[in-house]
C-alpha cells in the first residue's frame, strides 16, 4: 500500500499541492486526472521518491519512501516518463538491459536470470526484430515500446506512468495501455498513471483520482467520479456523459459553448 499524507509542494514558488492525502491499494490501476498545471506530474514525481515534498510524506508499506535505498526502491517501483527515451546511440537490447541496473552489484555482476528477463521483455513488446537497432534509428512510438520493455526488465510491483500516451497516435495509445493492463493483470501490479485523456482513463483504470486546486476533488470508480457536475466544476466546461456502447464505461462528449439546450 502507498499512502500520501499531507503533501504540500511548490513549483517555482507557487503552491500546487496543498495538504493532499491519498491511498493506493496494491493490485489496481489508478488514474490521476485533472486540468493542466494542477500538479499531476509533480504528485507522481513525489510518489516515485525522486523529489521530496515541502511538507508531508509518502509511505510505501508503512515506511517513508525517501528512507528506502534507491536501488531497493527501483526493484519495486518503475516509472515511465512522458518524454520517453532520448534517441541515444545504445542498441535496443542495451537499453532494455539497463532495466536490470537495480539488480546489479557495484562491479556489474548480474543475477543469473537477467538475460532471460531481458529477452522476455523484448519479446513481450514485439521488439525482437529491432533488438540490435540503435535507439536513434527508431520512431517515437518504437522508443516508447523500448521504454516499456525496460520497465518490464526492471520487474517492479508498482509502475508509475506519467502521461504515457501524450506523444502517441490513438492506435499506439490503445496498444500501450492494453499492454500495460495485460501485464498488470498477469503480475498483479499496482499501476498509477497520470492521464490526460479522460476517456482512456475511464476505460482502463479501476479507480480515478481527480486533482483540483491542490487537493483531491473526487476519487473512486469512473462511473461514480466522471459526472457532468464534476467536469463542470473542475474543467469549467459543459460536457455530456454517455456510457461506452461496448464496455459501459462513462465517456465524455464535449460540446461547444455556443450550443444551447433549447435548440434541440
Amino acid at each position, binding site marked *: 500500500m502507498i499512502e500520501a499524507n499531507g503533501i504540500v509542494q511548490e513549483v517555482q514558488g507557487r503552491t500546487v499541492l496543498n495538504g493532499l492525502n491519498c491511498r493506493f491499494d496494491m493490485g489496481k490501476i489508478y488514474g490521476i486526472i485533472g486540468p493542466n498545471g494542477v500538479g499531476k506530474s509533480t504528485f507522481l514525481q513525489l510518489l516515485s521518491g525522486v523529489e521530496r515534498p515541502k511538507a508531508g510524506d509518502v509511505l510505501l508499506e508503512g515506511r517513508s519512501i525517501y528512507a528506502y535505498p534507491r536501488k531497493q526502491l*527501483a526493484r519495486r517501483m518503475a516509472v515511465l516518463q512522458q518524454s520517453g527515451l532520448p*534517441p*541515444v*546511440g545504445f542498441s535496443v537490447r542495451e537499453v532494455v538491459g539497463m532495466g536490470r541496473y537495480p539488480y546489479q552489484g557495484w562491479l556489474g555482476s548480474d543475477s543469473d536470470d537477467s538475460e532471460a528477463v531481458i529477452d522476455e521483455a523484448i519479446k513481450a513488446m514485439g521488439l525482437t526484430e529491432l533488438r540490435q537497432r540503435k535507439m536513434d534509428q527508431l520512431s517515437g512510438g518504437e522508443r516508447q515500446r523500448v521504454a516499456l520493455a525496460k520497465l518490464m526488465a526492471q520487474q517492479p510491483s508498482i509502475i508509475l506512468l506519467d502521461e504515457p500516451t501524450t506523444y502517441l497516435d490513438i492506435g499506439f495509445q490503445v496498444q500501450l495501455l492494453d499492454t500495460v493492463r495485460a501485464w498488470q493483470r498477469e503480475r498483479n501490479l499496482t499501476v498509477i498513471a497520470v492521464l490526460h485523456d479522460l476517456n482512456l482513463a475511464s476505460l482502463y483504470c479501476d479507480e480515478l483520482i481527480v486533482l483540483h486546486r491542490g487537493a483531491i476533488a473526487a476519487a473512486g470508480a469512473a462511473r461514480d467520479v466522471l459526472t457532468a457536475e464534476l467536469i463542470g466544476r473542475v474543467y469549467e466546461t459543459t460536457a455530456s456523459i454517455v456510457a461506452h456502447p461496448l464496455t459501459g464505461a462513462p465517456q465524455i462528449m464535449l460540446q461547444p459553448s455556443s450550443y444551447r439546450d433549447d435548440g434541440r
Partner: protein
Amino acid sequence: MNDKGLTYGGAALLLLAVSIVVSLSIGSAGISVSDVWGIMIHQLPWFADGTASYTDGEIAIVTQVRLSRVLLAVLVGACLALAGTGFQGVLRNPLADPYTLGVASGCSVGAAFIILFGLQTAIGMWTIPLVAFATGAATLLIVFWLSRSNGAMQIETLILSGVILQAFLGAFVSFMVSMSQGVVNQILFWLMGSLALRSWDNLYILLPFLAFGLPILLLYGRPLNLFVLGERHAAHLGIRVERTKLVVLVASTLLTAAAVSVSGVIGFVGLVVPHVIRLMVGPDYRLIIPLSAIGGGIFVLWADTLARIALSPKEIPLGVVTALIGAPFFAYLLHRRKLKQGGAA
C-alpha cells in the same frame, strides 16, 4: 561487450607501447635508435651484465630526460582525457572538457599563485596539486552558478560560462606573471602548457591521482551509461544522481588539478579523445573510460613529441599543439550539433 573490450583494449595498449618506443627513439641529442634501446635494456637488472659501452651522458639523456618526459606525457594525457570523459558523462554535455569548462584555468590560478609567492612546499609536496584542486573546484562551482537558469543547465550556456571564466582567469595568471620577476618562466609555462624540463618527481605527483581517479571513474561506468538517458531516468533506475554527480565531478577535477600541476594548461585533450573513442566503440562508458585513458596517453605523447621535434632545437609549447588540433575539432562538434539541433548530440 567483453570481447569488444579486450580487442580494443589490447589494440590500444599495443599502440601505446609502440608510441612509447618510437617517441623514446626520437630526439635532438643524436643518439641512434639502437643505442637508445641498448641503454634501456641495460637498465633492466637482469641485463645489467657490465658490457655496456654508453657514456654517462647518453644514459642520463635517455633515462632521465626522455623516459621521464615520455611517461609524463602519457600520464598527463590519461588524466586529462579521463577528466574530459567524466565531465562529458555526468554533465551530459558533448562539449565539456577541463579546458572549455574553465576548470584547467582555475587550477592554474591556484598553482601560479603558489609559485609566485614561493609556497611550493607549504604543506608538503602536494601543495600545488591540492591548491590547484581547490581553485579548480571553486571555478567549476562558479561556472555552474553562472549557467544555471530555472534549475536547468543549457549545453551551450555552460560552455559559454566556462570559456568566459577561462578568459578571466587566464588574464589573472598573466597579471601574476607581470607582477613577478624571478619566476616568470615558471608561471608562463602554466599558461602555455609544456612538459619541458620536468623530472621523475612530477611523475610521482601524478601517479596517486591517476591511481585514485581511474578506478573511481571505472566504477561509475554503468551509472554514467544510464545518465545518457537523462537524470530522471537514471534516478528511477536506482541511481543516486546527486552523489554520482558529486563523485565524478570531484574525481574529474582532481585529475585535472594533477595534470595542470605538472604540465600547465593543455587544452582540448579531454574533448578530442573521448569523442574519437566514442566514434570507434560506441556510447558504452565501461569501454570509453579505460580506452580514453589509454587514448589520452597516446594523443599527448604524440603531441609532445611533435612539440619537441618539429622546430628542434626550439620547442613549441605543448598547449599550442593540442589547441591547433583541438580547436578545429571543437568547431566541428559545434557544427554537427547545429545540424542535428533538437536531437541529443
